């Protein structure tokens, strides 16, 4: 599988063109795409857009990164050991189901209204897909593949870096693909809820001021942000999968 071809954007473009042509330019709820640029221009003029994109990107990417590290570690651990899996699963399952919005005040009590607080709230749900895909990939690894480095006397570290990590990498990246939009959603949600810096804060403000063209403009920017990260991860995943062809 190669990277996702750009041709695949055709249906989306058709949809947007239809919206532009058939949409009512005066609609307060569904302004056509051509109005979106004007919608966000006040933010550009007041120099608020770029910092907002920066703040959101930072939380999103950093959150996703931490979630990836934690998710693959915990996922590998619970995938490798049934007792650990049984001990941790219900608690993890419980935490996962908690809505981010009700975690915000709790996290804020401990960390204040800071970027770290945003990170904590983002990491928990975002690590879940990575944890689960990693866990199931670890479970279905061939025992012979796992025995090989042991019999060759590789140290624990070498077993992890030279065998386990490459073998689980495709699964981790699949998990990251699923987690990326989730991390973005939660980042925006936390920003909407707290109005702590970022696109979500701008989005929330625009929404409560009924600036729908600005809302769509900001959503598009957020969407592009998510798409770019997705695209990078997908590229990485396809490149890795191709190298792993023997196993897949």
């Amino acid at each position, binding site marked *: 599988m190669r990277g996702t071809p750009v041709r695949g954007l055709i249906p989306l473009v058709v949809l947007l063109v239809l919206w532009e042509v058939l949409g009512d330019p005066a609609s307060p709820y569904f302004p056509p795409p051509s109005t979106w640029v004007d919608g966000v221009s006040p933010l550009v003029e007041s120099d608020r857009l770029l910092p907002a994109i920066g703040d959101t990107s930072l939380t999103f990417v950093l959150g996703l990164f931490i979630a990836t590290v934690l998710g693959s570690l915990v996922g590998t651990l619970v995938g490798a050991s049934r007792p650990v899996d049984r001990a941790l699963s219900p608690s993890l399952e419980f935490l996962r189901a908690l809505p981010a919005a009700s975690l915000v005040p709790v996290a804020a009590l401990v960390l204040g209204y800071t970027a770290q607080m945003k990170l904590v709230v983002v990491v928990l749900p975002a690590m879940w897909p990575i944890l689960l895909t990693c866990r199931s990939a670890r479970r279905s690894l061939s025992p012979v*593949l796992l025995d090989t480095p042991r*019999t*060759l*006397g590789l140290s624990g570290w070498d077993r992890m870096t*030279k065998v386990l990590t490459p073998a689980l990498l495709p699964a981790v990246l699949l998990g990251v693909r699923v987690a990326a939009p989730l991390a973005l959603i939660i980042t925006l949600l936390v920003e909407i809820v707290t109005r702590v810096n970022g696109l979500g804060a701008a989005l929330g403000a625009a929404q409560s001021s009924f600036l729908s063209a600005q809302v769509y403009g900001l959503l598009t920017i957020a969407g592009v942000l998510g798409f770019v990260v997705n695209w990078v991860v997908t590229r990485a995943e396809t490149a890795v999968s191709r190298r792993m062809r*023997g196993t897949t």
Partner: protein
Amino acid sequence: MISCDDLSVTLPGANGPVNILSGVHLRVAKGEFVSVLGTSGSGKTTLLRVLGGLQSATGGRITCDGVDIAGPPDGVVTVFQDYAHSLLPWRTVRRNVALGIEKLDKTERDSRVDEALAMVGLSERDGEYPWRLSGGMQQRVQIARALAMRPRVLLMDEPFGALDAMTKASLQDQLQQVAELTGTTVVFVTHDVEEAVYLSDRLVVLSGSPANIGLSLDVPLPRPRDQIATKERADYLELRHEVYAALGHKVGERASG
């Protein structure tokens, strides 16, 4: 050096746990070459996995140099029957062979890899990925990887099973030479009676269900052995005969008589 006493192994099965091995006593001396024979499914692979520290026994005691085996002991390397799964598909042949010796400095490592690849006749294919190789080639990569480690003990599970007669003979002799030169202890699972007799100091046959060692036979043929000279010896032919008979096999016996 390797010994197991009253070894038993139970594995999960569709209808509850199954007792695979029971009451197995085996002692392999340093530098000894022991072959393990037995019908398909008798438990040879399981026994080898226990000796290699890859599978824990349900009962009995297994030691290597007097130390209880828990995990693969240093210098004990297993060559797996399932070669397809034991090669890392993301590494080239060369890097697969180097996997166990990457702590060595580059010159030493390279020379060992080159040597091992030459032994198995794959010097030319060192840049290839394993999934582009034929079955027999993959098996040889695995053997090369084990040889590059220069192990004290080699546990080999049907290592030459997927090889044609000529390649097999050549590898048998390479193995024989290496073992003799370095004093390597070898436990060798095979289906090939002639190969077992030709290579071994002793051969054991797993039989029964749960399996244990039904026959143990010394092979006092002089070393070094030779594919032509040894196989023409009367005592070689007699031993072969004896093993076939013990396996209840009327064919090889007569056909070669």
